[in-house]
């Protein structure tokens, strides 16, 4: 079969349409460049009533939104989850890694938690801070102007608190705390843990004429039909098209490799169309990879040629290495003070926490480096599959007998509605060369493309962090007058540390640096080995922070886009 080649040469091909690809699209198209986006999944627009799950009721689903077809519940707006049919990944024996993929325009930005935290000055200088890992080749001051512009372009609520490592920004005003969040504020403060308003990219206030304002359904995970939350499609790609940008989107197109010429420069990409299962080629002056940290590493490693025998951009042998996810641990408690609630009002709020705790610890007194923040959940949410399933299982915490049947079940459901509060710790795991993904030479996906094999171990530092999280949660629950719903997990359970990958903050596989021997890209996200290939997803992260990665992905993508425009103008690439 002959590979079908396009005659048109684009200025830029962007592989992937999530946070990084969306931002590059917006910036490069606004600069007048001719763009082709290549996306592995179908088209998706949150405003399309045909695919919309926002404002649907559980009873519209025959399984009442049980998570059988979508891992986070039938309402979740992610097409694809820990598994994507026909696209496996494998593991080195005895290791674990969970990999979430959303196959759709906008990628995982359609369902994410919208927690939008800037990295702070310390987060870019890990080695200087405590000797672990490496420093980034850039500092907070390099990224700050882009965070500032990002806040204004995309919109994020929060407050300026003047905290050293949780920088201020250009915030929309936050929503008022919910009832359980008031209990949390009191409980955390008793232990000296700071609580501040959440920082989430949802519009509590208008930022332009194109996007709606939040109407507080609490369903950002379903992707907002009026574009009041951030998704890469609705807030970056569609606006780029609307303002006249030259943006063509190739959907259902699974990139196999970056193609190169005799000089080793990139000429474009080849992709498999999921519609006809044939291979196509697109040509461009510049290739921007934004397929997600692991997918981008996979594409590079699969792009082998005479000039790049070890895979594209991999002369350092670092592609796929330093893979790291956030640490995570979760707990919940029954708070009697929140029992027997009035249901007289709607407290859905935004789709996430109205308050949270940024990292407060003093590592010189702790047995682990770096920190974590605490996310809090609870309240009188929408009943979906599983609601009331263990009707009065909470009885045992009050010395009552769980079980039985009859009218009392109705009373029990109402008694406990909104009385459970949950906590998620999200922290920084260390970047280690020994944790990596590589090509599994024995396995291909249904398109014949070799797949990734993961090799990941947590260290005792991450376990110690999880232990600290659980001790903190227990203390806060007690401070709230509550009862923990489970005992603190012990050493045999890694102290409750979630499996690698489960927090869906995987980064680091194509890290940036000044030394081409120990890094994949330079400080402008440009491959050391090939000057017309850029990476604008979380692969370039030298280290995670105790922050979620999306805001930094977008700031760096914007910064890299400015550099691409500059280099094209100067005819350097």
């Amino acid at each position, binding site marked *: 079969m002959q590979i079908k080649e396009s*005659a048109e040469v684009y200025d830029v091909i962007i592989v992937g349409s999530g946070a990084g690809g969306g931002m590059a699209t917006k910036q490069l198209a606004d600069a007048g460049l001719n763009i082709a986006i290549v996306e592995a999944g179908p088209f998706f627009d949150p405003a399309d009533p045909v695919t919309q799950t926002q404002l649907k009721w559980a009873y519209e689903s025959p399984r009442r939104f049980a998570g059988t077809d979508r891992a986070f519940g039938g309402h979740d707006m992610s097409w694809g989850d820990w598994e994507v049919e026909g696209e496996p990944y494998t593991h080195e024996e005895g290791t674990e890694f969970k990999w979430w993929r959303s196959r759709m325009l906008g990628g995982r930005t359609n369902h994410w938690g919208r927690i939008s935290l800037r990295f702070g000055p310390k987060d870019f200088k890990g080695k200087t801070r405590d000797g672990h890992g490496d420093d980034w080749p850039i500092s907070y001051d390099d990224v700050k102007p882009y965070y500032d512009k990002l806040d204004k372009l995309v919109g994020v609520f929060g407050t300026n608190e003047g905290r050293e490592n949780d920088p201020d920004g250009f915030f929309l005003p936050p929503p008022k705390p919910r*009832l359980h969040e008031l209990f949390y504020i009191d409980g955390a403060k008793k232990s000296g843990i700071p609580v501040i308003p959440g920082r989430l990219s949802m519009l509590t206030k208008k930022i332009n004429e194109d996007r709606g304002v939040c109407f507080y359904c609490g369903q950002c995970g379903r992707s907002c039909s009026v574009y009041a939350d951030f998704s890469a499609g609705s807030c970056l790609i*569609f606006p780029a*098209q609307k303002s006249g940008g030259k943006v063509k989107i190739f959907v259902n197109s699974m990139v196999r490799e970056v193609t190169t010429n005799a000089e080793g420069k990139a000429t474009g990409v080849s992709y498999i169309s999921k519609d006809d299962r044939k291979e196509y080629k697109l040509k461009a002056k510049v290739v921007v990879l934004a397929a997600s940290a692991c997918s981008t590493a996979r594409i590079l490693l699969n792009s082998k040629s005479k000039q790049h025998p070890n895979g594209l951009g991999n002369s350092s042998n670092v592609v796929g290495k330093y893979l790291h996810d956030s640490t995570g641990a979760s707990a919940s408690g029954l708070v009697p003070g929140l029992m027997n609630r009035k249901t007289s009002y709607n*407290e859905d709020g935004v789709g996430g926490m109205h308050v949270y705790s940024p990292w407060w610890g003093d590592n010189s007194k702790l047995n682990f480096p770096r920190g974590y923040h605490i996310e809090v959940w609870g309240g009188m949410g929408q009943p979906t599959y599983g609601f009331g399933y263990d009707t009065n299982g909470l009885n045992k915490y009050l010395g009552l007998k769980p079980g039985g049947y009859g009218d009392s079940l109705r009373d029990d459901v109402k008694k406990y509605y909104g009385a459970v509060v949950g906590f998620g710790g999200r922290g920084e795991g260390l970047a280690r060369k020994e944790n990596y993904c590589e090509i599994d030479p024995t396995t291909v996906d249904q398109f014949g493309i070799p797949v990734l094999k993961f090799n990941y171990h947590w260290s005792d530092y991450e376990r110690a962090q999880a232990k600290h999280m659980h001790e903190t949660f227990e203390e806060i629950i007690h401070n709230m007058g509550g009862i923990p719903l489970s005992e603190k997990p012990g050493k045999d359970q890694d102290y409750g540390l979630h499996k690698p990958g489960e927090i869906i903050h995987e980064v680091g596989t194509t890290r940036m640096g000044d030394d081409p021997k120990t890094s994949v890209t330079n400080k402008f996200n440009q491959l050391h080995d090939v000057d017309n290939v850029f990476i604008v997803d979380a692969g370039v992260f030298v280290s995670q922070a105790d922050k979620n990665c999306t805001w930094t992905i977008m700031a760096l993508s914007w910064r890299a886009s400015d550099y691409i425009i500059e280099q094209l103008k100067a005819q350097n690439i």
Partner: protein
Amino acid sequence: MDRRKSIQTLILGAGAATSGIALSSCKNESETAVDEAISSGTEKFFGRTPAELKRIEKLNAEQLFNEHEMETIAALSVVILPPKEPHGGPIEAGVPELVEFMGKDIPSMGPTLLGGLMWLDHKSNTDYGVEFKSATLEQKKEICDQICWHDTEKPLDKQPLEIQFFYMMRGLTVTGYYTSKVGIADLGYKGNSPNVWDGVPQDVLDQHGVAYDPEWIAKCIDQSTRGTIATWDDEGNLLT
């Protein structure tokens, strides 16, 4: 042409790279058929993808319980959660249909449900000489009383099948009821509808003995300004 349509016309399918299809090209027939399948499904199934829709339809075409078993499920569900005016009970909530669907959707649930239903009839026939569904309410309750308490110190799957069965049926009945239209009315849940959140009502704050910190509230959104476009000074102070 509305905005969404204008965007969709920019989406190019596989062949476009070589065939030079114009930007405004129409969808091909197979795409149209898929679209129609999704649209007809969406009335019933809340925005499913074609693959998800196919699976739901496949499950709907299968039958797990026979008519007698469905009647037994219905009879048990109303003992577990008796109907109550004005918000009905498990039958109005579609609980038997949910039990049927979940038994197929999560195949590991099927044997527990089927086995438990057989146990109910066996027990009822042995004790009262009548199938469970035809037993009197008192007889049904006597049977349920023997299986409705599980040992909370022991994993459920280490307990007798009839105990596991009752636990599962109670779970499905309560979750089925409270995720239904009538159950949500009974619960009093007020959400899943557009509104403007402006904090917890004072009577609720009073009931639970908490109060808003005025300093905190001063930073929160003044909902009368939500429609005004945000602008800031250079320091990040909101001006509007």
